[in-house]
C-alpha cells in the first residue's frame, strides 16, 4: 500500500481493528478477556480525547 494511503488510513484502520478486538474479546470470556477488551477499546477513546484537547502548533 502506498505511503499516502497509509498516512491517511493507517491510524483509522488500526483504531477500527482495536475496537473490534475490544468488542469481541469480552463476549468470549470473563476475567482476563474483559481487561483485553478494556485496553483495546480504551486506546481509541484515549487517542480521541488527547487529540481533541491538546494544544496544537499554529
Amino acid at each position: 500500500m502506498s505511503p499516502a494511503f497509509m498516512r491517511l488510513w493507517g491510524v483509522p484502520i488500526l483504531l477500527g481493528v482495536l475496537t473490534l478486538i475490544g468488542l469481541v474479546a469480552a463476549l468470549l470470556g470473563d476475567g482476563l478477556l474483559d481487561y483485553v477488551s478494556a485496553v483495546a477499546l480504551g486506546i481509541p477513546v484515549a487517542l480521541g480525547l488527547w487529540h481533541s484537547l491538546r494544544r496544537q502548533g499554529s
Partner: protein
Amino acid sequence: MTPVTIRRWAWIHKWSSLVCTVFMLLLCITGLPLIYHHEIGHLLGTEVASKAMPADTPKVELDRVIAAAKARYPGKQMMYMSQEPDDDTIWNLTLGDNGTDVNYKATAVDARTAEVLPTPQFEGSFMSVMFHLHVDLYAGLWGKLFLGLMGLLLLVAIVSGVVLYAPFMRKLDFGTVRRERTARTKWLDLHNLLGIVTLTWLFVVGATGMINTWADLMFKYWQSTEMAEMVAPYRNAPPLTSFGSMDRAVAQAKALEPGMKIGFIAFPGTPYTSEHHYGVFMNGTTPLTARLYKPVLIDAQTSRVTDSRDLPWYLTALLLSQPLHFGDYGGQLMKFLWAALDVATIVVLGSGLYLWLKRGVPVPARAGKLDETGLVPALASQGDAR
C-alpha cells in the same frame, strides 16, 4: 475522487445525518443513564434488595414463592417469573388480569423465605421514561420501527462520512485540529477526528440497535411458526382447571438440559407459551450461551415436558447482538468506555449540526484546483479556503 463524486457523497452525508441527528441525540442522551441503570437503580432505591443470609441458606419451593406473589395480588394471574443472573436470592414475578396485561404488577419474593419484598414499580419511574424514549418513543411497535429507520440512516451517514474523510484529511496528519483557523474549521477537524475514532463502535452499536427494533417482529414470526408447531397438539384441549407443581416442572426442565439454568418462566396465556404450558426458558452458563435461550414447554397440568427446541437463527442472532448494543458484558471498565464513546458521539452529532448551520457561502466550484487543496466545494465555506 472527482469533485462530482465528492459532492454526491456530501449530499448523501448531509441529508442522512440531518434527518436522523435529532433522534440520535435523543438516543445518545437517554442511552447514557441506561448504561448505568443498575447503579442508578441502587441510588434511587428502585432496585430490590434481599436480606443478607448465609450463602448456603436453603431455597423454598417455587410453588410457595408463587403463592406468596398471588397472595400479594389476589385475583391476578401469574405472567412471568425470573431471576437476575447474578442474584439467586430474589425471584421477580409479574402478575396481571390476563396474560398480556400491560398494567401488570411486578413483585419480588425472597427465594429463601418466600417473603414478599417491597417492590417499586418500573412504569412511571425515571428509568422507564429513559427506556421508552430510547426504545419506542411511547409508540409501541411503530415507535421501534421508526427508530430502526433512523438507525439505518445513521449507518448511511457513517459510511458516507468515512468516504468523505479521505478528501478532507488527505493533507492533514491524523488528529490534526486547526485551532488557529476559524471556529468552523476547528469543529470540522474535531468532527472528523471524533467521527473516525468512534466509527467502528458507533457502526456496531447502531447496527445492533437497529436489529433490536425488529425484535417484536422476529418474535411474532417465531410465535406463529415454531411455537405454533410446538403447541399444536393442545389446540383443542379444554381450558386448564388446575396447575401442576412448578417445582416438578423446573426439575423436569433441568433434567432435560442439565448444563443450563433457568432464565425465565412464562405462565399459561402469555405470549411466550400457550394456554396449556409453562414455558421454561433456559440459559447456558458461558458468557456467550448465557445470552441464548432454550425454551422447554411443560404441560401446566401434569408438569411433564412436551417439547423443546433450539431458537431459530434469527432469534439467536438477535440475542447475540444485544450485548454489543448494551455494553453490559465487560464489567465497569467497559461501561465507562461505552459512556465515553456515547459522549464522543454526542460531540460528533452536535458538531455536524453546527457545521451545517454555519455552512456559509459555498466556494464556487473551480473543480481541479479546489480538489487539490482537499476542500469539498459543496461543503466548504470561504472561511476554510487557503
